[in-house]
């Protein structure tokens, strides 16, 4: 009998991702409704130190695989580790944050157990004793509700910022499991970090984005200043990326990142359908654009029709005052 709602507690360099806490918080609710236990899975090197941080979000148990071979994420290493646990303890549900790692890992584990995986979800609910997931598809132009009724574990990846992370400390039982060596065919030759104080785009609560209206790469400094006041990430439209002003990792949209921040500030972005596809699930959208007919105003909660080169610096100053108060 499969049992347990499991959350993959994603960590990188000794930090558990916020999305994992979000999933544990919401996981607690569905586990209680289904009468199942809530468990976290922690995989890596020296991750035993992280069990306390994970416990704060209320799992009943934490399965830990701590091994030198798992210091850095590799597809095979982590797939082997998580699969060993799944095989041994047979959870009924396995949840991941929809991050680069969550996506990569979940697909491999899902196929190893020949089960279903619903990705990029923005909701989950219990309906007739089944977990039903909400997934935006066709770049958010349609929504499907889906479940994995038979195969186990039922798997899903869930977008960061979908649920609130709510502390609910519990004395979780920690279960250490050996890493059953397996081939790791991906050999990491190099890791290149872009040092940035700013949050990761897909996880950020606030995003300040620029488009063709920024006119050139040097002007992104304006957005960075605004972002720094808000603790925000910086994003961009494809036009800004294609012009070579910022790297593709900044692109928001159908062929860029999908983001659901609390606040999205679009500066000099017209609001093409492919851009909206990546950000229209933001809770609050602000548009600053000099063209009052721009499509972005159709989705914006607040708009300023004006020259961003005038508006943004003043906004930055105003917000600085407000944030300090």
């Amino acid at each position, binding site marked *: 009998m499969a049992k347990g709602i499991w959350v993959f507690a994603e960590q990188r360099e000794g930090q558990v991702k916020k999305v994992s806490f979000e999933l544990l918080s919401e996981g607690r609710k569905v586990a209680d409704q289904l009468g199942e236990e809530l468990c976290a899975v922690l995989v890596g090197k020296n991750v035993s130190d992280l069990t306390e941080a994970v416990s704060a979000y209320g799992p009943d148990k934490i399965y830990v695989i701590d091994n030198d071979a798992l210091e850095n994420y*590799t597809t095979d290493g982590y797939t082997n580790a998580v699969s060993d646990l799944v095989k041994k303890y047979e959870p009924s549900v396995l949840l991941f944050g929809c991050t680069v790692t969550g996506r990569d890992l979940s697909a491999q584990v899902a196929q190893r157990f020949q089960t279903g995986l619903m990705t990029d979800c923005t909701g989950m609910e219990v309906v007739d004793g089944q977990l039903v997931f909400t997934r935006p598809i066709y770049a958010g132009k349609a929504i499907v509700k889906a479940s994995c009724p038979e195969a186990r574990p039922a798997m899903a990846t869930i977008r960061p910022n979908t649920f609130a992370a709510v502390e609910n400390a519990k004395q979780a039982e920690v279960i250490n499991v050996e890493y059953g060596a397996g081939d790791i065919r991906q050999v990491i030759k190099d890791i290149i970090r872009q040092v940035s104080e700013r949050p990761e785009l897909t996880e950020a609560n606030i995003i300040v984005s620029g488009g063709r209206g920024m006119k050139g790469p040097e002007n992104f400094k304006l957005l960075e200043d605004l972002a720094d006041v808000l603790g925000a990430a910086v994003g961009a439209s494809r036009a800004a990326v294609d012009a070579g002003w910022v790297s593709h990792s900044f692109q928001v949209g159908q062929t860029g990142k999908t983001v659901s921040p609390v606040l999205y500030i679009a500066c000099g972005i017209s609001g093409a359908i492919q851009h909206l596809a990546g950000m229209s699930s933001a809770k609050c959208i602000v548009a600053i654009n000099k063209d009052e007919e721009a499509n972005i105003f159709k989705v914006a909660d607040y708009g300023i029709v*004006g020259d961003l080169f005038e508006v943004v610096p003043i906004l930055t100053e105003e917000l600085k005052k407000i944030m300090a108060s």
Partner: protein
Amino acid sequence: MKILVCLKQTFDTEAKITLDSNGKIESKGVSMIMNPYDEFAVEEALRIKEKGEGEVTVISVGGQQTQDALRQALAMGADKAVLVDPGEIELDEFSTATVLAKTIGGMEYDIILGGFRAIDDGSAQVVGRVAELLNIPVVNVVTKLEIEGGKALATREVEGGSEVIEVALPAAFTAQKGLNEPRYPSMKGIMKAKKKPMDKKTLADVGLDENQIAAKVKALSFSLPEARQAGKVIPGEAAEAAKELARLLREEAKVI
């Protein structure tokens, strides 16, 4: 070097989505394109081939109109196309990957390329699943790929940076934007493509029956999202408006 490219035909990014009378996504009358990420995969395959010797085969699971996307790849320069038409059954990523892996299992290959994600109902899992089924390594979201001496060095995008991964071939890779700039098919390429082989198969031809590929995920209902309402445009000169916006974000929207 034998290179296989998994290619999906998807809705055009401009397509308006509606529901049909059964409450499913209406596909009639929608213009279709090659999944944009798969264009990067096709291009990369061609570049690898052009550096040495090789053959590029594009493979798709889909209905007969998927031939258009396959022809486009042939026009870009791919050598052969394989289309597996599973008929009128519901597929999920498990099903699609099973069909692809079964088809590929009977072929020779050194490299499998695909897109990192299909932009329609895609979910960034089909190629990974295929790799798992074929028991070969996968490297996802690749922005640079170098092949040498039976090995590949792949640069992949990760949060906050990138990683360089080495794998031995055969291996699978999924393309991220940045990998290359896909070429447009030339007139000559389009003419040539008409004569290139298009191998059309059924499920039975690849040795599968419907039960073996029954979807694990069941779609329960489809809906269209409520259109976002336009909010307020803040009047006034730049300074005034910016100040008011800052106030509204804190006091009304309570997002900062």
